[in-house]
């Protein structure tokens, strides 16, 4: 099965992290940065974060939530949920195979 974020190039990892972050609840940019830092120990730069957001929004994987202030939260769309599930399942298969090979080595 093709990976939904496969053609994001070097942005596939930040894009995946954004999807994982939004899987919890809608968040705006700064909350995503904090959440991703908590998850991975790495803080995304603002250019990288918005590069990923633009790509994901362009694909319809995330969407803006209507808000009255300047902070615009984003939410995962149904297509984004599917993409995240597929991407994580692919990673899960790689992780399982890797762990199995290490155990038998």
């Amino acid at each position, binding site marked *: 099965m093709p990976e939904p974020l496969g053609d994001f190039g070097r942005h596939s990892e930040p894009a995946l992290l954004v999807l994982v972050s939004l899987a919890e609840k809608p968040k705006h940019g700064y909350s995503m940065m904090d959440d991703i830092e908590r998850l991975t120990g790495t803080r995304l730069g*603002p250019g990288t974060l918005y590069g990923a957001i633009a790509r994901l929004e362009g694909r319809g994987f995330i969407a803006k939530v209507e808000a009255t202030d300047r902070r615009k939260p984003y939410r995962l769309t149904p297509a984004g949920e599917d993409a995240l599930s597929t991407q994580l399942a692919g990673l899960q298969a790689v992780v399982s195979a890797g762990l199995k090979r290490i155990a038998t080595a």
Partner: protein
Amino acid sequence: MKSSILIRLYPRRWRARYEDEMRELLEEGPVSVRDGLDLLRGALEAHLIRDLALGPEPRRQTTLGGVMEHPLPTRRSATVAGLFLCLPATFLLSVTMKYGFGYDTVFDSLESFWTFKPIEYITVLSPLAALLLSVVPALRATVEREGGVVKGALVLQAGAARIAVAAVSFGMLFLFFVYFLTENF
């Protein structure tokens, strides 16, 4: 580092969509040199990758002979070009009314105005100025390398209003040229 300057490096369509929230994000804390470099790289990518320049769709555009690579020019120059046409349009209208329909009041009442040399030159040259003003800002030169072959194209990228102004300007210039030929040869 001044973050607002770095955000200005992003394409206009990107800023229309993300500028407010990026500013909000950057105002949450100090912007490090690393963040600054990250923004620079993001701005460069946003310029290079067309799909990233999201935002409202560009206005409907007409192409003559090429692929669109840039958003449409603003309407300001086309509006100024349109204003340039007011004087020759009035002249041609009054001439048409006099010699075409025998209604000479408009032309005759302005005859001293039309025969005043500077006004005459301005009237004749205005369509040329309008043509240049409407066409030149809408021209885009594109150069592409394809399999070792360099291809160049000059594209007119304009909305309907701009094309209408250019067409009317050209028509007026043509009329003045024909008039000049019939009067002098």
